[in-house]
């Protein structure tokens, strides 16, 4: 099954790039990118079952806890793209990861569930309970998603970290495109997908 954000990620990745997938799960996205973009890919993953699944799929995977830092593993600029797909909201320190990932790669691609999506707002603002739906399928007391944010929040963090947003796309789970989605992304985007890099500082 293709996840809603994958086709956009695929479009942004140049053929034959070196790609690092942080929190790569069973490696399906890496396989997808290897098939479609002939990339060379490495994944990082903590879960035993997922690591084994990657190895069984013939993928390169490093078993590691993303929260313990990735800076040690990779030399600066050793990748063209680092992807963090649906993972950043589960990290203890998303801001450290964002800074680290753009030290080891030219560009980063980040996807996450948008807390500002109208359904989440209705559930919290009108119904008065934590969002619980397709994109956020866990109850508040037992969820890996400890750092949810909206598009606005994410963009503010990028700005603070000196990161430049190169591209932004939003989708809903059905991958529908609509005028609403384009005009009010922070209301109607269920998932956000960003392409970011380090801002070039004006050295004189």
């Amino acid at each position, binding site marked *: 099954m293709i996840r809603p954000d994958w086709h956009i990620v695929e479009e942004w990745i140049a053929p034959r790039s070196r790609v690092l997938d942080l929190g790569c799960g069973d490696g399906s996205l890496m396989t997808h990118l290897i098939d479609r973009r002939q990339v060379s890919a*490495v994944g990082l993953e903590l879960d*035993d079952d997922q*690591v*084994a699944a*990657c*190895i*069984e799929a*013939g*993928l*390169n*995977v*490093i*078993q*590691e806890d993303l929260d313990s830092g990735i800076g*040690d*593993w*990779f*030399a600066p600029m*050793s990748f063209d793209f680092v992807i963090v797909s649906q993972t950043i909201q589960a990290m203890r320190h998303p801001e450290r990861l964002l800074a680290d990932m753009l030290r080891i790669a030219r560009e980063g691609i980040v996807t996450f569930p948008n807390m500002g999506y109208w359904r989440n707002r209705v559930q919290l603002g009108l119904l008065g309970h934590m969002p619980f739906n397709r994109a956020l399928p866990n109850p508040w007391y037992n969820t890996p998603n400890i750092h949810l944010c909206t598009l606005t929040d994410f963009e503010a963090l990028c700005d603070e970290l000196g990161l430049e947003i190169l591209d932004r796309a939003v989708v809903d789970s059905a991958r529908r495109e609509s005028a609403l989605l384009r005009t009010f992304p922070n209301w109607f985007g269920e998932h956000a997908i960003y392409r970011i890099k380090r801002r070039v500082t004006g050295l004189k």
Partner: protein
Amino acid sequence: MVIASSHSVGVVQPQTALFTAPLVLDCGRSLPRYALVYETYGQLNEAGTNAVLICHALSGDHHAAGFNAETERKPGWWDSAIGPGKPIDTNRFFVVCLNNLGGCKGSTGPLSIDPTTDKPYGPDFPIVTVRDWVNAQYRLMRYLNLSRWAAVIGGSLGGMQVLQWSISYPDAIAHAVVIAAAPKLSAQNIAFNEVARQAIITDPEFHGGRYAEAGTLPRRGLMLARMLGHITYLSDDAMRAKFGRELRSGQVNYGFDVEFQVESYLRYQGTSFVDRFDANTYLLMTKALDYFDPAHDCGDDLITALAPARADFLVVSFTSDWRFAPMRSREIVRALLAAGKQVSYAEIESNHGHDAFLMTIPYYHRVLAGYLANIDLTLEPQAGIL
């Protein structure tokens, strides 16, 4: 008689390969001729693309799987992983395991006759290094008419041989499986080896290594060395789980006899080892460990040392292994990544300490099996490396 299960390679006979071309060693000396004893499991395919080499650790030998006799009770040292349907699947691979040079299980070593003196080498057997072993293993590969290993696999000191293979013969190894290893020993590792050596050397029955001529054995020294080794192979947790503070007779006797179960275990391990292992070989093996440091000749830069490698790598470590802790495997993985190699790394949760690499741990075996199953055997063996 042992009832061979369908997952056992069954009864196997060791074979011997004789080499008459001198082998120049790192220490500057050379062996004019030597023998390597080995076992094989499974069938070599027609294209010759499915050969796998197993490298043994400190006290291992060529008998990695199956039984040497129908009456044998214990199978080879890595029978948990080698056999039909096991991770190193003998239905798919032709598996070779040898006793390294300097060994005491049939390959030329301190117990062998020195052709220049017609007496056993004893302590005069040259110091051998991991690189020397790999050079000898390469000759065995040629002797077996193989041009390339689909994989070279080893744990601990065996993993060091795998690393050396990838550096010394990059075209002759397609996949490198490095388990519970380190890129070089730490000062603490060397310290443990030194205590083990001193235990042997200072045994009054050692006679400068010429104990055979004196008609004796440094039993106490070798036993102590093995007891010490065993402590470092197990984790604190594993020892607690296995023995706790359990007393053999149920009460303390206020003396120095064996009282705690752990003492009994260590003494048993020590004394049984003396009957099957040679003290001079033990000394040689610990030195090979100490000297292993492929980065040394490359300005202490492991990345440069691994640059020639062309193999794909699987690196595995175990969480409770403090002899070669996960940190040491991570050093290897980081260097491989920085050198641009294809590498996967799995860190196996286990409380068995260093010994875990010999155990049947489901996740560990799943990773090993999964990795090996992906090895492409349709590739033509590399030509032109004769």
